[in-house]
């Protein structure tokens, strides 16, 4: 895909958090952008996965396929999130079983048809959107375990100037050689293990000869309502606690040392 844009909004994993998505899309419409993209994992973790699809359609959001979307779309036996720890996998399975069971056939068809990546241009910058990494949908690109030269070599081989991903659940960005950059856009699905209840998306802006500008935007939403709905759907209390407190209670073993130490658990 090739479109020209000067300002785009990038949404990370939505994880069925349609309440945060609603607020984020309203904010983005008010701010004004050329296009809105979602980097995959539409369902997971939260309640009522089908409530995400009409919002994406209403706001003309173009999505790529995350590991969750691929698994749900093809009704696989697990989410292929990439966890190696039994406790991480235990909760991932609970979340996945609920999401698969509650995603409509039409929703699954949509998920199956999503592209693996999207590429477009912003002025002189070629931008590539992927879910985990361009080589592996469930690769974790954490800030503290991704060397700068790994990204430099990857972007050079791909021939792109800006690479955007999600999957880890925590936003970060890094400027690279030759005005290039990497952005992990964060996620709308759950807070990022910092004790705040807000969630995040990113705005990417082009300003002529200058490097691309990366702005992370917080989204305050009705997290108490989301928690009530998670409870009524029988989703684990541990998930509800994360939404209420901003601290991760699951998926902890996939965190590297630095990111783990910033959390409570």
């Amino acid at each position: 895909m090739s479109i020209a844009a000067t300002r785009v909004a990038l949404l990370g994993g939505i994880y069925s958090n349609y309440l945060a998505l609603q607020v984020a899309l309203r904010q983005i419409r008010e701010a004004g952008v050329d296009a809105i993209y979602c980097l995959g994992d539409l369902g997971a973790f939260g309640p009522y996965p089908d409530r995400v699809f009409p919002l994406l359609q209403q706001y003309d959001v173009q999505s790529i396929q995350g590991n969750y979307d691929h698994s749900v779309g093809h009704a696989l036996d697990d989410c292929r999130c990439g966890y190696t720890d039994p406790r991480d996998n235990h909760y991932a399975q609970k979340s996945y079983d609920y999401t698969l069971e509650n995603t409509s056939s039409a929703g699954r068809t949509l998920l199956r048809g999503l592209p693996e990546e999207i590429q477009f241009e912003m002025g002189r910058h070629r931008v590539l959107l992927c879910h985990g990494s361009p080589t592996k949908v469930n690769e974790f690109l954490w800030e503290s375990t991704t060397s700068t030269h790994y990204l430099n070599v990857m972007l050079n081989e791909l021939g792109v100037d800006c690479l955007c991903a999600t999957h880890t659940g925590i936003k970060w960005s890094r400027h690279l050689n030759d005005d290039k950059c990497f952005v992990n856009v964060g996620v709308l699905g759950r807070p990022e293990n910092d004790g705040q209840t807000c969630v995040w998306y990113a705005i990417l802006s082009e300003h002529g000869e200058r490097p691309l500008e990366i702005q992370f935007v917080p989204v305050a939403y009705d997290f108490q309502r989301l928690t009530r709905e998670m409870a009524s759907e029988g989703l684990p209390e541990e998930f509800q606690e994360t939404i209420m407190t901003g601290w991760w209670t699951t998926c902890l073993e996939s965190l590297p040392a630095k990111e783990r130490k910033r959390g409570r658990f």
Partner: protein
Amino acid sequence: MSRAQVRTHLDESVDVGVKEYYFTGGEPFLNPEMVPILIDSLEYGPATVLTNGTVLKERWLEQLAAAEEASCYSLEFRISIDGFCAEQNDPIRGEGTFDRAMEGVALLNEFGFLPIVTAARSWRLEEEERVVDAFLDRLRAAGCQRPRLKILPMLRLGAEETRSSPYAASDRVTRTMLEGYDTSQFICEHSRIVSDRGVHVCPILLEMPDSLLGAKLGDADKSFALKHGACLTCYQHGAICSNPSAGYRAPSSSESTE
């Protein structure tokens, strides 16, 4: 390897685009330059050191904590043991080594590290939940409020060949087994290990004559035939050497031949 030798390989790794660095041994902290080597590494990328935890010194940990604090990268400690109690570990690792390793874990926690205790599975699979829960309780009692574990499959190499049994000639990965298999789970698909002899295909096969692929990292980007018994264990379990944060999916039971 000396600090200067390691520095040369770190420099080479920039052009290759290495994502992260692991240090293993023997016991890495028997190298008198290990602390500066780790500090150097954190200038290049994330570092993990696999240690038995029995020789750590407070002044080393003080320096390493400061280096990690100043770096944008994580420094991970992996404490290797061969069982979650002295009765399982000490017959393999030596008398008293389990308690000393636990002292090392507690010391690392005191200095703000969250070590990943790495144990080879020396218990039956059906006992796993009980064994792991008991060990987590022990770690919490020792002051580790956020214990991290990685359980490795037992590799039938070295002393383990005589303790259990060596790989049979039929214990091999076959072409058919690779159909539809996610080969990124093999360590050799995305990693290399550097020793004073050169660059080898993987840490498990280090002593095998065919493991040496070249003198420099840039020479060692060639495919490797999965012809060893240990390749079967890697196939069955996936991601056996990397940290959980690397995120390589463990195979589901349907992909395991166990």
